[in-house]
């Protein structure tokens, strides 16, 4: 094992001009929607090569209207010098309703990244016009929604070259009929068990700016859960993208793509539905990536205090094994309530690390006997065998508690180190600039699909290094909770200054090979 540099971040949101607070409109009435939200998306909306940021925001309650500018969603343009400018008004993205999540993807293959915003009983699709402006697609596009949606993500489930949309729905919610919980003297937020769960939704892209709800036809709607984070990966290498949904307090769903437009829910059979002891956790965020470099995407899921976060290792045909205990994560995360997360190689040593956005539920202080706000945590991957909490050495920002929620990942300053943007409930958003000593080399892969979807989402990439290691990753923007990360596929390469061979498995089956790729750059690959 190569000893890596100390993972270190500096929080620079204020300095960078990223001034945003997600307002949840909590006013002592304990509406469940107040607990969630604060999603964030990273996208390069103007194709200038620098990743921009979009925050979702709350609304007045119980009206669910954005009655004040404080409730507006916000788009910040990256000025390519690590400063940002609020361009919400000119982009037309201030939004409406109580927004939760944002999912970035180029649904019409025009080369400009579009935005889907999920919310409480209202969803919106914004088409990027390519001139700095977005336009909300009409309800006839088929995505307006009427459920409380928490997360969403773009994937091409049928490999037809156009991105489809998966929406993770939480519970039936109506302010007028919401249950009252707590004691006679002290009201509190209800347990999710007090609410009726919902099916998730899958929308097929009709290639003409409209979508068809195929939730029933595909089998997705058969499973009723309380959906939170959603992540995509081709778990069995069959060329079709599979879907994982972290559920709150009920079993998780793993939808296996059967390649014929239908999905089979195999969470139980695969061993990822529940914790090792057979109990559900309050699943929150999730990522579906390969932590042990064996070529198979694994699963990480955050949960609530005393749940412990879950880590499942993909064994191929034998399903998944629970690696929470042996990796050290089970005990190390037991005291945390996690929301957004991501499995990214933060020190570029060739092993993907973990970043968790944490906070207990607001007003849990009196039960815990301590502050319910939490500082975020970062765990270093120790050669695919275990994870080590290195937050104590990761910078002052990892000691500052907040009501952290969504987190999205991108290299905002194009220095080859993955940064993180965190949205905070009723507090300033945080931009964690990665300042880990640049000891190791890296490679980014920006895909342009021609037969496949324009962003190449779903493409699997293997990278062979001169030191004999093979690394694996895939293109996805759906990471964590309510959030969307950059589409660039990143690799930390350790001491290797070049990759011997890169193999790209495009959605649909085409394989493309590149040889002798120099490190420390973003390689643009157009599908042949």
């Amino acid at each position: 094992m190569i000893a890596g540099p100390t993972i270190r971040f500096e929080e620079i949101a204020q300095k960078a001009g990223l001034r945003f607070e997600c307002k949840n409109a909590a006013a002592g009435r304990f509406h469940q929607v107040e607990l969630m939200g604060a999603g964030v998306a990273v996208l390069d909306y103007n194709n200038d090569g620098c990743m921009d940021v979009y925050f979702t925001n709350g609304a007045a309650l119980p009206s669910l209207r954005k009655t004040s500018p404080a409730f507006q969603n916000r788009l910040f343009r990256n000025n390519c010098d690590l400063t940002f400018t609020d361009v919400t008004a000119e982009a037309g993205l201030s939004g409406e309703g109580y927004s939760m999540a944002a999912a970035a993807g180029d649904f019409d293959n025009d080369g400009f990244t579009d935005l889907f915003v999920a919310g409480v009983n209202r969803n919106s699709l914004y088409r990027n016009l390519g001139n700095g402006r977005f336009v909300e697609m009409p309800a006839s596009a088929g995505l307006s929604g009427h459920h409380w949606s928490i997360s969403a993500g773009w994937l091409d489930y049928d490999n037809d070259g156009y991105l489809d949309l998966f929406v993770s729905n939480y519970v039936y919610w109506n302010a007028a009929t919401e249950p009252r919980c707590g004691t006679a003297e002290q009201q509190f937020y209800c347990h999710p068990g007090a609410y009726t769960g919902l099916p998730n939704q899958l929308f097929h892209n009709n290639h003409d700016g409209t979508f068809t709800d195929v939730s029933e036809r595909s089998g997705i709607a058969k499973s009723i859960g309380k959906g939170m984070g959603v992540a995509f990966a081709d778990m069995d290498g069959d060329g079709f993208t599979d879907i994982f949904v972290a559920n709150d307090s009920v079993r998780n769903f793993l939808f296996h793509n059967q390649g014929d437009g239908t999905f089979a829910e195999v969470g139980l059979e695969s061993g990822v539905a529940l914790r090792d002891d057979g109990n559900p956790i309050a699943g929150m965020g999730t990522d579906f990536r390969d932590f042990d470099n064996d070529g198979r995407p694994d699963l990480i899921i955050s949960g609530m205090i005393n749940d412990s976060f879950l880590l499942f290792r993909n064994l191929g045909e034998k399903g998944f094994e629970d690696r929470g205990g042996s990796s050290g994560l089970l005990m190390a995360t037991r005291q945390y309530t996690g929301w957004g997360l991501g499995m990214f190689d933060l020190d570029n040593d060739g092993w993907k690390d973990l970043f968790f956005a944490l906070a207990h539920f607001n007003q849990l202080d009196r039960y815990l006997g301590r502050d319910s706000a939490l500082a975020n945590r970062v765990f270093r991957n120790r050669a695919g065998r275990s994870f080590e909490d290195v937050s104590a050495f990761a910078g002052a920002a990892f000691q500052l508690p907040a009501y952290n929620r969504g987190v999205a990942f991108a290299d905002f300053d194009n220095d080859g180190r993955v940064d993180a943007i965190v949205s905070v409930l009723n507090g300033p958003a945080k931009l964690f600039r990665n300042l880990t000593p640049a000891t190791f080399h890296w490679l980014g892969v920006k895909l342009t699909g021609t037969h496949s979807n324009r962003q190449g989402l779903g493409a699997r990439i293997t990278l062979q290094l001169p030191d004999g290691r093979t690394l694996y990753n895939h293109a996805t923007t759906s990471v964590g909770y309510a959030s969307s990360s950059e589409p660039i596929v990143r690799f930390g390469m350790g001491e290797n200054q070049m990759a011997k061979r890169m193999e790209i498995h495009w959605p649909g089956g085409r394989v493309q090979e590149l040889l002798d790729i120099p490190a420390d750059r973003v390689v643009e690959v157009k599908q042949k």
Partner: protein
Amino acid sequence: MMIWAAMLLVAAAQSPGTPAYERASALFQKRNLPASQAAVDEALSLDPRLVPALTLKAKLAMAAKRFDIARTVLEQALAIEPTAAYPQFLYGLQFYLSNELQPALTQFRKARELNPSDARAAQYLGLTMESLGQPIEALTQYEQAAKLNPKNTDILLTGARLLLSLNRLPESAQWIDQSLQFDPKSRDAHFEKARLLLRRGDLAHAAEQGELALHLPAGDTLDSQIHYLLIRAYRDSDPAAAARHAESLR
């Protein structure tokens, strides 16, 4: 526990509320909670300072998940008799069950000081420590609890679960086997054994232990937990059996 029950009875013996309290206590043992509640209220109307009756009233409140009432009543009892160990333990317990861990920790520590031979206080102090992210300290408490009451399978399994979480499999196995020695028909112990075997990759024996657990009388372990274990244990060797167990969870 026996000593404390005897002490409570002695304390109650001098009081005009004693006959009603004794009736309430007997009804509580028979799980006739409404009648027990009426009798204990009668006892307290005759003697509001009767600590055993206050303690029983708290237990009744906790059974009804009215931890707010239990808290108030136990505070009254402890104000009257600050060194009463059993009310002190219950005071900690109601905090623990309300998920108020810091006060639970403080109160269980007091309960341990008041009665160092109470294994249950050590066990719950350990559980609280475990929930607060102090696994090593928790394990020490479980070890002390097991020394005080070596045949208590609940304590042994509590320790075994923590050791499993810490990936200390050989020690966990010892605690589980010890538990099975004292209670060979414990569903919970067989389930924990099955989990341990599954973790070790011994799927055949994990399935065997899981099936055994499933057919034993109910304990803390739910059928659903065992079904999930059996799905994983049978996944490779008997997919049809795995599917059957999956279906029972759907």
